[in-house]
């Protein structure tokens, strides 16, 4: 057992040394480790399929207990060229809103599978992210990628998520809703990316959601991030032109590690001419993740949004308390409480949520 753990640690060290840049899985893990996204994920902008290092990290360093033989079996690789992975999240929730009966239910939140087919090693690959359940199958990402995702330029074309700010696990976070850019809003187009040492940069030209049917314009999105072992900072911008009104989004995001706590912050501002009269919206997030013990993480989040800067008294806030326990490789349990505060006349803006989630991944 000890021999195998030593071997596992040695392999991780070797893989890490082979990487030119240090990086993540969930954003807080990236900040905690000082890694860039491409260290743990096949996709250089993060999320989805984990690479060999990411799989190994998730099996050895993330869980409270490391299972013997864990490194002997699964790495996600079916062949030298084909790697697969997946996430299944199922949960029980209870939602309470003022003047409304509480709702509670078990639900299959998502089962997603990922595949990466390498056609030319380190140069050409095809990537797919498919949500299998619930309900019908739905493609999230499908693109061809050419170039290096670790050192140099790459280009990808197809359908993919846009790079903008923290790629959070919670897609209902205010910063993701207000910007409209999240891991449920893939877009079609091309992305030019650049990875070098501590730098990551992307430049995307896509249809834009407003042009999904009309072809009346494009969305241009760009992001630059600089990563150091205990801190990072990034800037992102997006501009969408369409015949229903232009939309411009700007954001700053940063991460800082202080001892066992990883801090994430993001602030975004949106100018949306597609809304009646045009509106300026703002959103912000502050998250602290405390790695209490190996396999235990306490996540506290405070969020803010202003749906119209010209209108007073309409701000909303949201506070979350989530405990994440990863007992074994491939299994995570999450329990949490979330409280919304908004204008008193809107029940939905003042709801409370209790959540228990089972997360299996490979």
């Amino acid at each position, binding site marked *: 057992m000890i021999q195998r753990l030593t071997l596992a640690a040695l392999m991780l060290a070797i893989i890490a040394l082979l990487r030119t840049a240090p990086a993540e899985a969930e954003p807080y893990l990236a900040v905690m480790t000082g890694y860039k996204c491409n260290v743990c994920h096949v996709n250089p902008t993060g999320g989805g399929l984990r690479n060999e290092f990411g799989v190994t990290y998730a099996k050895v360093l993330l869980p409270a207990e490391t299972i013997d033989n864990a490194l002997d079996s699964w790495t996600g690789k079916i062949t030298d060229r084909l790697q697969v992975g997946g996430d299944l999240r199922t949960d029980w*929730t209870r*939602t309470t809103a003022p003047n*409304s009966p509480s*709702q509670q*239910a078990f*639900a299959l*939140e998502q089962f997603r599978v990922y595949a990466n087919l390498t056609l030319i090693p380190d140069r050409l690959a095809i990537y797919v992210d498919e*949500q299998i359940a*619930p*309900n*019908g199958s739905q493609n999230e990402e499908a693109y061809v990628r050419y170039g290096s995702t670790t050192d140099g330029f790459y280009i990808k074309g197809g359908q993919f998520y846009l790079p903008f700010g923290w790629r959070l696990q919670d897609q*209902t976070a205010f910063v993701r*809703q207000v*910007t*409209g*850019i999240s891991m*449920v*809003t893939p877009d079609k187009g091309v992305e030019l990316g650049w990875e070098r040492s501590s730098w990551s940069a992307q430049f995307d030209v896509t*249809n*834009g*959601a*407003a*042009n*999904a*049917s*009309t*072809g*009346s314009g494009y969305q241009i999105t760009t992001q630059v991030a600089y990563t150091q072992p205990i801190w990072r900072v990034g800037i992102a911008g997006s501009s*969408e032109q*369409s*015949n*229903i*009104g*232009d*939309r411009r989004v700007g954001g700053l995001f940063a991460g800082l590690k202080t001892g066992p706590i990883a801090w994430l912050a993001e602030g975004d501002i949106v100018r*949306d001419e*597609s*809304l009646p009269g045009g509106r300026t919206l703002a959103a*912000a997030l502050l998250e602290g993740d405390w790695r209490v013990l190996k396999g235990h993480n306490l996540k506290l989040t*405070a969020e*803010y949004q202003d*749906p*119209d800067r010209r*209108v*007073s*008294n*309409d*701000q*909303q*806030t949201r506070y979350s308390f989530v405990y994440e326990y990863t007992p074994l490789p491939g299994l995570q349990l999450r329990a949490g409480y979330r409280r*919304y*505060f*908004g*204008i*008193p*006349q*809107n029940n*939905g*803006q003042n*709801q409370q949520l209790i959540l228990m989630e089972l997360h299996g991944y490979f």
Partner: protein
Amino acid sequence: MLIAACGGNGEGLDANGRPLVPGDGGSPPPLSADFDAIQANIFTPICSVCHVGGSAPMGLRLDAANSFNLLVGVPSTEVPSLLRVKPGDPDNSYIIQKLEGHQAVGQQMPFGCPTTQPCLTTSTIAFIRQWITNGAPPSATAATAATVHAAAPLAITSIVPDDVEPVSASPPQIMIAFNHDLDVTQIDSRSMHIERLDPGAPPMAGEIVPARVTVSSANLRALMVWPSRPLSAGHYRLVINAGSPSQFSDIAGHSLSVGVPNELGESVISTFDIEVLP
């Protein structure tokens, strides 16, 4: 900003967080099988949190100014054979299947329900069902909004199938939504055509597919192009014929602006691919 413990106090705002207009009473009407009430109690406070503006998923904007036009008589993007709202037929309306979480139409809405927000209750959905059963009539507010925006130029707001989008089977019809009610007296099957482009063929040398052009009686802003036969796999474009843009006008007489036509005087407004699934 983040240390503010609570949200806004809501003073001077309606239930959707918009400034009160003097004389409107401030609170939404009670939920009923009326489009105004459904908009105020469901679409605006719940759906348009995401389905709004340029970032609206599937191009479906459910704010008060757009929702009726993009719902009634309009094929869904995920399942084009289903109308988002089929007047008189709630069971075969995409929105009902989506809200009830039917297997064939993808993820249940509202997004994230029941994990991050409540699903709509059966009794709430029943009001939408009843509105559809009643023929999905527009509301007084929608009519007013149409009047307010009547001065804007006539424009296309959406096309299904998407521009440059592959579809897995021949769509029964191609849908074009406009921002104003169309003057249907000038529109006929000579106004536009579908063209199949053979691989390697020069542009503007495709095979014209006979098609019928109609306007939805349930929604004068929704124009349908019906191919006379199922479209086989291939690359297609949708073309407004030379001289026809002037035929596309709204009931106020505004003509459609579709950009610079090609040398044949035609305006290509959409291209799409039909693929054959194994």
